[in-house]
């Protein structure tokens, strides 16, 4: 569990191999959107389906990374990150719905016979304000919840249960038509983003690149944090919070900082997810989604920065294959994964690889 040392250890195990593989993966990911721009009859053309699928998985990778920052480093297992993801997605969805509706009201509002926008919809036709909302909505919610939770020293499983209840409550709220976010159906039928056709090849490629950039940026941020004294204090919070307090550190501020940062990252990931997938609805907030994110992190190896990305990629890759090939057995596979990882892979795939490397 020497997580902050993970980077150093990984480098020792084979810095060249690690870097080489990383560079290769990055190169492939950069190539994908470019290949998508090729004409459809070209052999190397990457279909919109593939690009969207990979883009979606990259968004999940950001979520996994964000979750790992709070779970792997600070020891706070959140089962409510889906809520932050969805809030970012909804903020972006508000903008896209306005864009699609032009000067009129978004379609679902006309359907409900509403005549004017609810107050929280004002300004959402402005892309910049929507971006602010993407950050503010999950950020403020995380701030308020975190402030109270950390103040009363809720941690461990209590924290997990509370966050799960939080996302559950959010889901119930967004399911209601009166809440003003399209109820059951959420938002869909987007047409344009910043004036560009949302289904155009160029737009898709640009969104993919933006997602990749966010992922690389978050990864860089993660490295920076993990190497700073801040990262070491977080590990100390995870392992011996009381001792840390007697050293004169106030763990609340540290937890709150990483918690809010993580929520904001999730929100950004959600904001990039929605235009690529084309829909956002309350089921994104279901506790099932959030807890699934935990298994990505656990499978990859928590407390490492690469592990969660690996886990998110593996699980989601498996999921897309299973749901096509054996839809009935996907839940069995996922369930078995949950059990198998906790029983046999406490340090995740990264731990396994590292062990191999050492031998």
């Amino acid at each position, binding site marked *: 569990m020497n997580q902050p040392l993970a980077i150093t250890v990984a480098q020792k195990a084979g810095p060249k191999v690690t870097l080489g593989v990383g560079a290769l993966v990055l190169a492939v990911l950069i190539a994908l959107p470019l290949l998508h721009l090729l004409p459809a009859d070209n052999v190397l053309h990457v279909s919109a389906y593939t690009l969207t699928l990979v883009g979606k998985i990259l968004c999940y990778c950001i979520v996994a990374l964000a979750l790992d920052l709070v779970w792997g480093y600070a020891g706070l297992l959140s089962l409510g990150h889906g809520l932050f993801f969805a809030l970012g997605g909804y903020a972006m969805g508000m903008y896209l719905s306005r864009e699609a509706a032009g000067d009129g009201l978004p379609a679902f509002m006309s359907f409900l016979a509403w005549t004017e926008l609810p107050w929280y919809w004002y300004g959402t036709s402005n892309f910049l304000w929507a971006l602010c909302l993407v950050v503010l909505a999950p950020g403020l919610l995380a701030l308020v919840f975190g402030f109270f939770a950390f103040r009363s020293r809720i941690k461990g499983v209590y924290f997990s249960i509370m966050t799960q209840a939080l996302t559950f409550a959010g889901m119930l709220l967004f399911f209601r038509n009166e809440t003003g976010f399209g109820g059951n159906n959420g938002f869909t039928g987007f047409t344009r983003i910043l004036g560009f056709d949302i289904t155009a090849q160029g737009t898709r490629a640009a969104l993919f690149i933006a997602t990749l950039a966010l992922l690389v940026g978050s990864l860089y941020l993660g490295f920076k944090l993990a190497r*700073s*004294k801040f990262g070491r204090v977080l590990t100390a919070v995870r392992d011996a919070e009381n*001792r*840390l*307090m*007697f*050293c004169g550190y106030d763990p609340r501020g*540290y937890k709150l900082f990483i918690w809010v940062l993580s929520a904001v990252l999730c929100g950004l990931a959600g904001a990039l997810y929605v235009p690529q997938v084309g829909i956002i609805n309350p089921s994104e907030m279901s506790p099932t989604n959030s807890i699934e994110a935990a298994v990505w992190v656990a499978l990859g190896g928590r407390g490492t920065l690469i592990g969660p990305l690996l886990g998110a990629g593996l699980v989601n890759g498996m999921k897309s294959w299973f749901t096509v090939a054996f839809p009935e057995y996907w839940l069995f596979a996922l369930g078995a994964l949950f059990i198998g990882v906790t029983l046999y892979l406490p340090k995740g795939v990264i731990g396994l690889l590292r062990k191999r490397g050492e031998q």
Partner: protein
Amino acid sequence: MSSTANPELMLEPAFDPAGSGRDAIGASTAASQGLNIRHGTILTLEDINVSFDGFKALSNLCLYIGVGELRCIIGPNGAGKTTLMDVITGKTRPDNGVAYFGETLDLTRMSEVEIAQAGIGRKFQKPTVFEALSVFENLELAQKTSKTVWASLRARLSGEQRDRIDEVLATIKLDGSRQRPAGLLSHGQKQFLEIGMLLVQDPQLLLLDEPVAGMTDAETEFTAELFKSLARKHSLMVVEHDMGFVGSIADHVTVLHQGSVLAAGSLAQVQADERVIEVYLGR
């Protein structure tokens, strides 16, 4: 019940680490620089009561520790020694009573973090270090510096701080293991690391809960020397069962029994006390 700080035992009451204790008025963080210790008493506990679900852990406890004093607390199991430390460090709130650090800081109103920042360091009974971090990093975290989130984000060790850590590493003889994860240290090494963390934290009052448990005789002896060299510059309160160790360091011993002070004085004095013998031998 009278364990008033003995003026004769207090060495150089005028000594003031920051040199300007007179004009400080207990603001939490800055207080460690200018603790008001005008009357030579660094810790004042009066009529402290603590009860857990009806069980009285401390009852009407009074205790004074002078500036630069090295005080040993002894007492049978369940006498309330650890609870006493919990009260001083803010982990447990007393039901009533007065607890002052210096002249102005009311410990009953401060959080654990504020107390630690004000200058009270604590070593736990079971050695607790940050196992996932290296020995060096443990000391780095404990070091006296600004401990806000912002400061940690931009922290860079200065040459001076690095030297101080190296110095302490040498003192606690963990020089060779500076990059080892603290979780891999032996029990005794962890004890030393924790003591080292207290040293870099540079508190004015050190609370040490059974510091020599699990140490070899040589290590114990070394610790005794270390503590003696710390006294005067710092005030120490040591809880210990090892009478040999107590005898080698203490100038003043307080015996706790059932949550209050049973006897106080030099080790020889308290060892001669009838009541103390009765408590320890259970007659």
